[in-house]
């Protein structure tokens, strides 16, 4: 029992001037990475060889992946996954899933939020049931770069406005928000400028649209919202001419079983017609990511 604190401080004070974290075992770097986001990890891969090695190890990336990633991969058409050859490393799987990946014949896309690994999903209007969609007097499809699906449904006018959807999807456990992405007015480009025509936009200030969502395990949410403003004042109408995410509500996924989800949007008071509306998609994202998006 010889050691006294005085000779320890002496020995310790010189610090030996050795290199810093360059010497640290990869396991330590790997542990540091558990507290960093994927973009932060990818950034630090440029530091030196030790960091690069840790930044591609499966033990670092496995916890960043959603628990249901094997099911997510199995949803995708083989040619989507296939041409990248085998996704053997967890980092490659994360990188692959963090792009927008179309599936179900391009009517849906999924992606991971890069910072959190949260699973996000979007369903095109093409993947929904729209009452009267086949009747050209009511609805038409407009190709556009403003949708990630390259096409939106445009409503000229109708009395019975109803859009429904049903999806089964392997969400990892968590709380999710569902929103409809809508646009009042018909947009077009002239001489490179974006313009909007509201000639057919009518009826949305009379009664609210009813948004609903329900899950196979009994959760139900609904809300009503007027898509247009009754009087146009000098300040302009900020519900027109831009894409707005209408937040329907949140639902909770407790286990990682495939969740069945129904959602709808209705205005079926047939005493008045309504029209001049673009329907792009719904999106489902972890509710923690919803801040900062323009939504109503």
């Amino acid at each position: 029992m010889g050691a006294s604190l005085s000779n320890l401080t002496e020995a310790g004070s010189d610090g030996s001037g050795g290199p810093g974290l360059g010497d640290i075992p990869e396991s330590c770097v790997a542990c540091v990475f558990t507290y960093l986001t994927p973009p932060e990890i990818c950034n630090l891969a440029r530091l030196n060889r030790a960091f690069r090695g840790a930044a591609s190890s499966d033990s670092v990336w496995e916890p960043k992946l959603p628990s249901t990633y094997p099911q997510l991969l199995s949803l995708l058409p083989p040619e989507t996954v296939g041409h990248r050859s085998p996704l053997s490393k967890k980092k490659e799987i994360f990188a692959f899933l963090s792009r927008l990946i179309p599936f179900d014949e391009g009517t849906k896309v999924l992606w991971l939020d890069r910072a959190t690994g949260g699973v996000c999903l979007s369903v095109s209007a093409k993947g929904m049931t729209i009452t009267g969609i086949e009747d050209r007097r009511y609805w038409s499809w407009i190709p556009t770069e403003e949708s990630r699906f390259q096409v939106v449904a445009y409503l000229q006018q109708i009395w019975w406005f109803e859009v429904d959807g049903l999806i089964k999807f392997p969400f990892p456990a968590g709380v999710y928000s569902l929103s409809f992405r809508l646009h009042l007015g018909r947009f077009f480009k002239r001489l490179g400028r974006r313009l909007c025509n509201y000639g057919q936009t009518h009826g949305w200030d009379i009664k609210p649209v009813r948004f609903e969502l329900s899950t196979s395990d009994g959760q139900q949410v609904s809300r009503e919202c007027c898509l247009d403003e009754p009087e146009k004042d000098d300040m302009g109408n900020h519900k027109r001419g831009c894409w707005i995410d209408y937040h329907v509500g949140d639902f909770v996924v407790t286990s990682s079983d495939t969740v069945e989800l129904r959602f709808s949007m209705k205005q079926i008071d047939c005493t008045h017609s309504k029209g001049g509306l673009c329907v792009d998609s719904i999106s489902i994202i972890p509710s923690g990511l919803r801040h900062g998006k323009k939504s109503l």
Partner: protein
Amino acid sequence: MSTESKEILVGESSQAKPEKKTIVLMASDGDEFVVDVDDITNQSEMIRNLISDMGGTDGLQVPLLNVTAPVLAKLLELFNVSNKNDDDEEVTQKVKELMEAELNMMIDVLGAANYIEATSFFDLSCKVLADKFKGMSVEEVREFLNIECDFTEEELQQIHAENAWAFD
């Protein structure tokens, strides 16, 4: 003193409290540290397993071949802070101060904690480093850690290509 039983026992003071169970940790340079069994097993999984494998603590001497005396002293000092506080706030603060004042020592302490499997202390220290790295550029981290870029220009381009997905 009411806190005496929680102190790391060094030298004479261990004899003053013979009823307290202690073991001896031997640093790589031969220095010996007498430590309270409860205090050390509370932190180190390796020593906890060792004691259970040996069937007791009687006269147990544990040589820590990779840990120098100054590093071991610092590690035990931080364990002491951790054992005295129910939450991690105080010890996190101490680790942060060590990182800013003596980074090499902090890294050595981290290595020692890893070696004796002091998992929660190790995780906590790694989080302190991670928090420091957040928001730093690669160049700033390199400077902070005093490490050289050991890649060729070609490799750097390859790394950039590998990771471009995370930034676009």
